[in-house]
């Protein structure tokens, strides 16, 4: 019998369940290693070489190198673990969260000051809120040419 996973229809949201945790185990444990100052230094000195010490998939390594947090989450990362990469880069939780929306830092901060993202239209896939797949990216940062 299939497991009960009623959260798969929430737009723009990945629930970190046992399946995601299994996929992301080494990615997340790599992140944990960045809680030690000496490891942060070694990672910053040569990111690729440090990542190659971990049995992560190539996709996971590339997502970390690109700081593509949405991709990291799709590949099993969890934000509380990924936050250690942000801390290593000197980024706040707000900068990290905002980076996943396509908004610039200022756009995202302004949205929060105005009361945050509205729930209307963002409860279920198929509605028309700003977190829905057909409305990405949401801001100027995501529209910029790479």
């Amino acid at each position, binding site marked *: 019998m299939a497991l009960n996973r009623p959260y798969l229809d*929430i737009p723009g949201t990945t629930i970190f369940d046992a399946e995601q945790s299994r996929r992301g185990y080494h990615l997340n444990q790599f992140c*944990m290693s960045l809680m030690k100052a000496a490891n942060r230094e070694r990672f910053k000195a040569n990111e690729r070489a440090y990542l190659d010490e971990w049995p992560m998939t190539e996709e996971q390594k590339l997502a970390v190198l690109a700081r593509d947090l949405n991709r990291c989450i799709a590949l099993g990362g969890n934000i509380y673990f990924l936050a250690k990469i942000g801390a290593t880069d000197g980024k706040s939780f707000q900068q990290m969260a905002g980076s996943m929306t396509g908004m610039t830092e200022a756009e995202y901060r302004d949205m*929060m000051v105005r009361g945050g993202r509205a729930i209307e239209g963002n409860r279920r896939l198929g509605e028309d809120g700003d977190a*829905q797949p057909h409305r990405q990216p949401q801001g100027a940062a995501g529209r910029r040419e790479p």
Partner: protein
Amino acid sequence: MARITASVYTSHVPAIGAAIDLSKTAEPYWQPLFKGYEFSKKWLAANRPDVIFLVYNDHATAFSLDMIPTFAIGTAAQFEPADEGWGPRPVPTVIGHPELAAHIAQSVIQDDFDLTIVNRMDVDHGLTVPLSLMCGQPQAWPCPVIPFAVNVVQYPVPSGRRCFNLGRALRKAVESYDEPLKVQVWGTGGMSHQLQGPRAGLINAAWDNAFLDRLIADPAGLAEVPHIEYVREAGSEGIELVMWLIARGAMSDVAGGPAPRVVHRFFHVPASNTAVGHLILENAQ
């Protein structure tokens, strides 16, 4: 006999800790938030407990993916503020209460809750930010603290019902402790927030305020709310609110006593990515 005198509920956003540590509390962005805790600091100073039982979640700090306890009780003599990647917060060491913690573990496990007993761990912002909000910046925290970490990071997390029932078992445990200690139970985390994906930044103030209303007046009914509603309505990290039900379940009215007195209620948006909610409930003397 020991007794639970009050319960305190508050969000535990890391940016709040940073604002305190970097002396930014008077800045226009933060001033309205800290104003909401001015009463609380005075209240705590006037109603100082002997022990705080502090329910929080570890944010991939003490517990990596190597081990994921659903409920973990800190039984150590002391706990150091953790380096979460930004360096440890400059706050006092948390002094534990090993005797009461061990007593609670024994009682609650015999009541069918499988606690993990932790004799060594560092504590992260989930535990230290509520202490900072309620105590300011003292040289030492005002009393011993028993850390109680709940897994709300990896699904499935414990249900609201299980948390509420755990609170009931906690009250029994405290009331069977021989020393006449005054114990406060704090439930922390939440309110609505989502830190990931294109839906990051979600705030649902109407849902949050309805949660506060029901936590006060209909906690047993609130405990029946399923996970999916928290996640859908209050964001993937809004699920932290189940922890408030542990503190609420420990109040006397749940065991047939009089309704608690609401001495303080506060709600503010935003603190970084998060809606901040805060409540103080006192048991009748």
